[in-house]
């Protein structure tokens, strides 16, 4: 459980840094808040950058763009996917 919490916090920090979400702090992102659309307002280029982040930080290669929509639903869904698939 603690491990999951740490991963969620880590993800929030790296998303803010990687996607230049200036003026946002990890505390501003809810674990179950939608990352795209009405939630955090990320767009298709951000999704591509998150794919790079998965590969760079967790050794996970995503090749099916349709799959990414589900995984990047929220911090929770990203963290679950990473826990199940990480190689590093």
């Amino acid at each position: 459980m603690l491990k999951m919490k740490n991963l969620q916090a880590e993800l929030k920090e790296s998303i803010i840094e990687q996607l230049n979400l200036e003026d946002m702090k990890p505390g501003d992102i809810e674990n179950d808040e939608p990352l795209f659309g009405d939630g955090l307002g990320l767009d298709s280029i951000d999704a591509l950058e998150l794919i790079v982040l998965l590969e760079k930080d967790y050794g996970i290669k995503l090749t099916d763009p349709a799959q990414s929509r589900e995984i990047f639903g929220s911090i929770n869904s990203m963290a679950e996917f990473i826990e199940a698939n990480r190689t590093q």
Partner: protein
Amino acid sequence: MKKLYLLDDAIISPLGFSTKENIKAIQEGRSGLQLQQKPETIETSFYAGVIEESLLNAAFVGIGDIKKYTKLEKMMLLAVQQILAKNKDLDLNETALIIATTKGNINLLKDPGNFPENRLKLSELGQVIANFFGFAQTPIIVSNACISGGLGIAVARRLGGIGKIKNALVVGGDLVSDFVVSGFNSFQALSQEACKPFSKDRNGISLGEAATAMLVSTDKPESSGNIALIGDATVNDANHISGPSRTGEGLYQSIQKALKEAKISANEIDFLSAHGTATIYNDEMESMAFHRSSLQNTPLNSLKGYYGHTLGASALIESIITKHTMLNNELYSSKNFGELGVSKSLTIIQENQNMEINYALKTASGFGGCNLALVFKKE
């Protein structure tokens, strides 16, 4: 506004080193796309249209020192040389040189060879071309993503319209560099197979390299059977910098404005040369814009299956092929098309056929939300 006449042209591509060879390859349904392996750049193999450097050097050695010029410069110089050789009375003091490219010599970032660093600059590339032949005017360089080549022709017409230009040589070119391969790969936009514009099973672009040149003039040639640009427009989507508009708004508006300027209606267009990159979203966007423009019954093709996406050169090459399509009254098939895979119906040319063509429309779209429409007329 004045018309702009398309006089002479040359295409240097994997399909051949002249317009004639290129048209012949298209007539025969041959593609320049081949499987490429670049494991140091991307893990998966991909299709691209690449010019064999030894063939290029063999052709270039007749006009210049192969060591003094970059690959792209040699391609562009060859294209211009062909036109100047056939138009010996062209006054280079008064002929504008318009160069369209997205990335120019970008391959020098990775592998500069013996070239100075400023050779990366597009203005240097322009100067190299101008100096080689002795063009007196400072080259005009258009770098506006994937509409650059077509915009170059529009720029000639627009400057011609206010009397600043009479003759111009419009040159377009781009390379399949590691830079663009990595970039489009990071966009997950590269197709593993040769690209399939407008098809159900399309899955991204194939890149291509080419250089091309077109001589244009505001003066009507004395001979008959000429193709003229009679309407042109660009409109930005104002929607997203990389994703095409879902409604095709900018492309739709470009088409409307170009038709209005040409004073013709959509049903007079006999042939439509689409952009058709074969990404899911681009082709879908085009189908929306064409449908909204009542062009769903107009025969159309995408040439990306022959050339791949040649970026800044593409809309210029496709305008040249459009010109010959009109002069030959011959529609060329949209290579690699299978089953229609866009939500609005379109009339994709599946086999070469003869048809009287008097008006044609060329469209293009690109990153930054840009869109272009050109209307050509046979006179």
